[in-house]
C-alpha cells in the first residue's frame, strides 16, 4: 500500500516535467521551421550582398584605372603644356661659392 502511494506521488511529480519537455520540443520545432524559412529566403540576400560586393570591387577597379590614367606622364605632359609650362632646357645653377644673400654696406 505504501509502495503504491509512493508511485502515484512520483507519477504526479513527473507530469509537469513531461509537459515542459513536450512544450520545449514543440518550441524547438517551431524554431526550426522559422529558422529554415529564414535560411531558405536568405540565399537571395546572399546573392544581393555578393552582387553589391562585386559592384564595389568593380567600382574600385574602375577608380584605380582612372587614377592610373590621370597620373600618367602623357596626361600630365598634355595638361602642363595646356597650362603654359615649357621644358627647361638650359637650367641655371647657382654657384655654391656665393652666399644666398650679401650684406650691404
Amino acid at each position, binding site marked *: 500500500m505504501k509502495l503504491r502511494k509512493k508511485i502515484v506521488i512520483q507519477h504526479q511529480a513527473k507530469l509537469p516535467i513531461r509537459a515542459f519537455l513536450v512544450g520545449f520540443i514543440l518550441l524547438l520545432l517551431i524554431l526550426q521551421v522559422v529558422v529554415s524559412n529564414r535560411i531558405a529566403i536568405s540565399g*537571395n540576400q*546572399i546573392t544581393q550582398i555578393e552582387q553589391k560586393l562585386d559592384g564595389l570591387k568593380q567600382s574600385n*577597379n574602375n577608380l*584605380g584605372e582612372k587614377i*592610373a590614367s590621370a597620373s*600618367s606622364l602623357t596626361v600630365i605632359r598634355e595638361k602642363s603644356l595646356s597650362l603654359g609650362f615649357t621644358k627647361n632646357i638650359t637650367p641655371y*645653377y647657382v*654657384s655654391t661659392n656665393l652666399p644666398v644673400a650679401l650684406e650691404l654696406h
Partner: protein
Amino acid sequence: MWRQKFVLLGFIICFSLIICKLFYWQFFKSGELANAASNQYYFKLNLSANRGQIMANDGSVLVTNKTAYLIYAEPKKIEDKNSFSNTVSKILDLDKEIINNRLNQSEIFWVPIKHKVNETTCEELKNLNLKGLGFEKESQRYYPEASLAAQLLGFVGNNESGEDKGYFGIEGFYDLALKGKSGFLIREKDASGNPILLGDEKRIPFEDGQNLELYLDRSVQTIIEDNLKKGIEKYGASEGLVAVMDPITGGIIGMAATPSYDPSKFGEYDAQVYPNPIVANTYEPGSTFKTLVMAAALNEKAVDVQTKFNEEGPIKIGQYYIRTWNDKYNGQLNMSQILEKSSNPGMVFVANKLGKDKFIEYLNKFGIGKKTGIDLEEEATSEIKAKDTWSDIDLATASFGQGIAVTPIQMLQAVASLANKGNLMEPQIVKKISDKNGKVIIKNPKIIGTTVDQKTAKMITDMMVSAVDNGDAKWAKPKGYRIAGKTGTAQIPVAGHYDVQKTIASFVGFAPADKPKFVILVALREPQSSPWGSETAAPLFFNITKELFTYYGISPND
C-alpha cells in the same frame, strides 16, 4: 491455373525489365546522372586570379588590369541566327561568316564570340537585348603610359588553352609570379539558383599575381624615348636603341628601342618587333669596345697611360692591313690619345701587348659571350670562339670591336663596371616583388665579378673623359661636365663581308665621370646623315645626358 501462371510470368518479366533498367541506371549511367544531379543542386564557379601590376620606381603604374568582357552565344536560344550574327559582327568588327559557322555547329550549347571586349562595346550589345547573347567578365591588361617601354614590359597573349600568358620582356620572364593561382567555388544552391546559407560549400581561394616594382624611372624612359625618336628622324637611321643603367646597383633605369609596338594591340604588329633588341640581338660594337681592351691592358700593366705608340701607317697582319678610320696617321700617340683619335693600329698594338690569352680572359671577365642574367625573357648571347681558333687577325680586329659580337646589354654592363670601380653588376629590371598579403621580396644589387681594379677603373675613366673632351664629338658635349665616353662606328657584316655603306653608329659613356649616376649606350643602325658615331650617336647621347642632368639636378660642379 494457366491464368495464374500467365500473370506470374507477366510479373516476372516486368520485374526483370525494371531490374535491368535499374542496373543500367546504377552501373552504366550513374556518373552522368550524379553529375546532372550535382549540376542541379551545386553551383560551380572558377575564381580567376588578377594578374599582378607592374610599377615604375616611384610606384606609378605602368601595367595594370581593367575589366573586359567575353561575349558568348547560346545557339539553342537564338531565334534568327542570321540576323543575330549580322548585328553582332558589325558591333564587334568580326567576320559575319565566322560567327555564323560557330552558331551552326550542331549540339553546341555555348560558343565564345570574342574575348577582351571593352565596356562601351559591351554596353552597346547589352542594350540590344539579344536573346542568346551572353557576357562574362574577364580581365584585360591596361597600359596607362600607352606604349612606353613596350619592349621591356612585353605583352599578355593567350596560350594553347586560351588562357592569359605573358610573352617577352617582364611579362614573359615573370609570368608565373604575375599570373597568380586560380581557385574555384562549389556551393549548394536552391531552386532559384541562390546559395543556401548552411549548405555544402567547397572553396579553393584564388591568389592574385604578385606586383613588380622596377628600377625603371618613367621620366627617364620618356626622355630617352623622345630623344631616340627625334634622333632616328634626324639621322635617318633604320633602327635605334638607348639603354640607361645605374652603374652602382645594375638597375635598368630606362630602355628604349625603335621600331617598337603598342602592347595593347600587339597583334597588329610584325612579330619581329616583339623581342627587345637590347638583350636579344647582337652587334659588332666597333670602337666603343676599345675602352674594354684598353682597360684590360692597363689592368695587366701591359701598357700604362704614357706608353707610346708610333702611328705612322697601316699595320700589316698576315695578308691584311689595319688602317685608321680616316686613313690619316698621327705619329707618336700615348694610350689616352689612342682612345681620343680612336686609332685602330694603336689598339692592335695594345692587344698585342696584352696577348691573346689575356685578351680572351678579359672578355670572360667583362661578361662577353655569356648571358648577363638580366630578368628579361628573350636574352640571347653569341659565343666567343674557342681559344685555339683565334688567329692574329682575329685578335687585331677584335681589339677595335670588329669580328666580335656582343649584345647591347653586355656592352652596357661591361662599361658600367668601369664606372663602378671594376665591379661587374648583374643588370636588373625588377627591384621589388610584393603580394597582396604584404609579403615583399627585395632584389638586392648583385656583384657577379670584378673586371679591373679600382686604380685601373680611375685611369680608364680619365682616358674616356679625355676621349670626350678631345675627340670628334666634343662639339656636342654639355659644357662644364666631366663625361666619360667613347664613340663607335662598326661596319655591318653582310654575306661574309663588311658593307662600307652600312654602319652601326654607337656611343657608350657615363656621367658625372667621378660619381656616376648613369651609364648610357646609344646605337643607331644605318644612319643616313653620316655613318659616323661621332656625328649621330654621340650628339644623341649628349642630348639625353643634358636632360638627365636637369632631371637629376646635377650641376657642372657635381
